[in-house]
């Protein structure tokens, strides 16, 4: 059987938060959700974006950890900080280009999406991707994604000069060459320069 992999397709997301609610229900999470569901700019859009850990091949969070608390499994899953080692410095929180790790003061530990390791390591699909009603989050084979979707799965991102390869794929529109995400500070004015389709209903009504 072909290997199962994780795919995110932001264009499918409907912001229902089933992923967030289901992540809390994973037995090892005990009510704490590790997935982030970002509401982009509700003032002028309904766009939302789910963010699981991308599980970088060479995880930046682990590289910057001064306490060597962040470990990768042999099959490439980057785990939450080890409780006895984590010193709560939040280097990983700041360094992650995808904004995934989060420091929880109540338990003095960084926790993050761990690919539902208790499930995926025994052949079950992760909670979030199993329940996702829009299948913006999908856990299936690369062949199945290529067969059933028009978009192209990509697992290589370039941030400035740095290329990051990940275990998790993002499905991008056909014809996208490479992914070079850039930082946009919401509310600082710089988002106006970013590509920005109009979701203003008043504009639609004034079209001729």
């Amino acid at each position: 059987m072909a290997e199962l992999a994780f795919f995110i397709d932001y264009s499918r997301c409907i912001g229902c938060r089933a992923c967030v609610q289901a992540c809390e229900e994973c037995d090892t999470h005990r009510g704490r959700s590790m997935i982030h569901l970002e509401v982009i700019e509700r003032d002028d859009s309904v766009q939302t974006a789910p963010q699981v850990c991308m599980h970088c091949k060479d995880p930046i969070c682990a590289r910057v950890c001064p306490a060597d608390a962040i470990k990768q499994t042999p099959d490439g899953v980057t785990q939450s900080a080890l409780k006895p080692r984590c010193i709560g410095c939040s280097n990983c929180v700041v360094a992650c280009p995808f904004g995934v790790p989060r420091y929880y003061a109540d338990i003095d530990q960084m926790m993050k999406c761990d690919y539902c390791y208790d499930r995926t390591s025994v052949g079950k699909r992760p909670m979030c991707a199993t329940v996702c009603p829009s299948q913006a989050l999908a856990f299936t084979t690369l062949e199945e994604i290529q067969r059933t979707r028009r978009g192209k799965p990509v697992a290589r991102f370039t941030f400035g000069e740095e290329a990051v390869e990940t275990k998790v794929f993002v499905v991008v529109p056909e014809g996208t060459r490479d992914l070079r995400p850039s930082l946009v500070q919401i509310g600082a004015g710089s988002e106006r320069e970013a590509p920005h389709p109009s979701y203003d209903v008043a504009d639609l009504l004034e079209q001729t």
Partner: protein
Amino acid sequence: MARLPVPVVDLVKRFGPHAQREPAGGWSTRGEPDRLVKTHCCFCGQQCGIQLKVKADKVIGFEPWEDFPFNQGKLCPKGVKRYLQDASPDRLLSPLERVEGEGFREIAWDAALDRVAGEIRRIQGQHGPDAFAVLTGASLTNEKAYLMGKFARVAVRTANIDYNGRLCMVSAGAASKKVFGIDRSANPWSDIPKAEAILVAGSNVAECAPITTEYLWQARENGAKLIVLDPRLTPIARTVDLFIPVRPGGDIGVFNAMLHVMIERGWIDRRFLAEHTTGWETVEETVRRYTPEVGARIAGVPPALIVKAAEIWGPAHSSFLLHARGIEHHTKGVENCLAALNIVLATGRIGREGCGYAMITGQGNGQGAREQGQKCDQLPGSRDIENPEHRRTIAEVWGVPEPSIPRKGLSAVPLVEAIHDGRIKGLLLICFNPMVSLPDQRFVGEALERLEHFTVIDFFLSETAHFADVVLPGSLMEEDEGTTTNVEGRVIHHRRAVPPPAGAREDWRIICDLAARLGAGDKFAYRDTRAIFEELRVASRGGISDYSGITWERIDAEKGVFWPCPSIDHPGTPRLYEGPRFGHPDGKAHLHAVEWRPAAEEPDQEYPVILTTGRVVAHYLSGTQTRRIGGLVDQTPEPYCEIHPRLAARHGIAKDDFVKVESRRGAVIVRALVTTTIRPDTVFVPYHWPLTRAANRCTNRAIDPVSNIPEFKVCAVRLSRAERPDDAIARLAPEAGGVR
């Protein structure tokens, strides 16, 4: 004497809603379940398959059920968190009776049932049989829906029984019956991804039917073009090929003008129309006047959008129409659906793979609960209560003389009006929370206060139960065995995961016990709910919704069976109208020409803005269940007023300000959600909350003349910036009607 015995704040303190955030015993002690029970979500008509984790007779969590074909493991947040209602501290564990000045006092089951039966007979003795009414719900299983219809006609012997599906599926159902002779979605969901063109009319699929999203996206991956018709830019609308931001109530402008363009361009299947339909000539004549410009004026959108819709829909080889409450919650709800069905039939694209239409059922058993005879005009098997032959059939099944079956009674809104004006004096209510869900809340409250006797069966003390004289603690879906019928017409099996907690009883036992006290025990001597289903099968035989070939064993083995299924060896009917052969005796579909007309209350100088209401994804109906589930409360704690920045600016309203939304009937004060994703002439407030946070304080109780659905989607309001409310109700938790 159905007034609140003590102030509402005191009732909330004792009975909730309190938001339950952890499973029974807490997160850390949850551990491994004793067993997994394959069943279905209790919320919404999608009825997703789910496995409930059970430990020591408590539901402690869930596991996706990936083999169930409809949702394949997918769930929305309501399904994910549904199990938490089992741990709610608000659960009613004893019958209660109202005590003036004290609240509610626990009483024994026998005393409670004796009192209810006594009040039914006293009121009927004094004021006639129809002075006692029964209101029910569409979240009941098929078995319970069947039982309630029989209970009202055979045990209580009242004509006045109706159900809250009156607020949901009746416009769609009436239109479907008029056009096709059958009230059911025409196609299984597996046809959606096979369509080239899809029109979603008045359905916020992402929030109200989330699982359907993947079917739409899969169609798009396959190359389909998607059109969405909605006053709000919903999550689905954000990325579709064509979004038409229609003015609430302007849908006929779009449908008729689309048809106008399709006729002009020759995208009409005239051979199909001639051979398999009636009424086309009048439709063609009518839509001749609906040029894109005329349609656009009615719809409040640019004509180019309507032309583009026709250009997507007209030439496609296959197509699928989905419609829901957005076009149905109108005083012309049935006409809106008829106009939508005209564009389906004009192309002849129905009754084939990838070609057809569906109405998206709202409530859990929105489909099945409207077939088993708890509607005021209906008997089991979707039979007509005024049809002599249908009456004889059911009288025989029930073992009663045909004349003893009452005639057609009042539908929900007129029934509440009859309570208000004193014609109905007593009410038994189950699975319905009109003090959140009915329009014109002040009027509904006044009506309930005039009842001489009011009994409520519920598992939590709903805002409506606050008014009760007697409350009987019933059962959750996971505590009883039965069937429902999903949005596709697929009959499915809800398994019992746990027994009701000590003190509560299965709803059907309560009804049978009451029937016995009313002298009809021999007609309600069921051993279990399977026995009710077996009788339902017999009663439905030969009816439109024929379940006679469906058994619980077949449902389990085949993962659901689609009605009609007239015999054990019949495979069931996932797709209707193949051939094509429609449900009318002539085998044809009957088109109806429709002219647009205004809503009962259009905006004017005094009330210049349209209020439209609806759901959010985290809550279900009146919130009796979901406002008690922590994760869902936290996701959407309170209602809000979605308002375009232009309209907000005119009223000096900024983001997160409180805004007073006021109609001729009442007002609600909620936070403003200022966003460009709604028409500037319309505001939206979701309706799941009670008291001074109830959107239905504003809505209009005008109803469609055919379906009797209220006009939830259009009423006239004015807006003003308000101070943060600080009264006793505002200080309650948001799930109880307060503000954060």
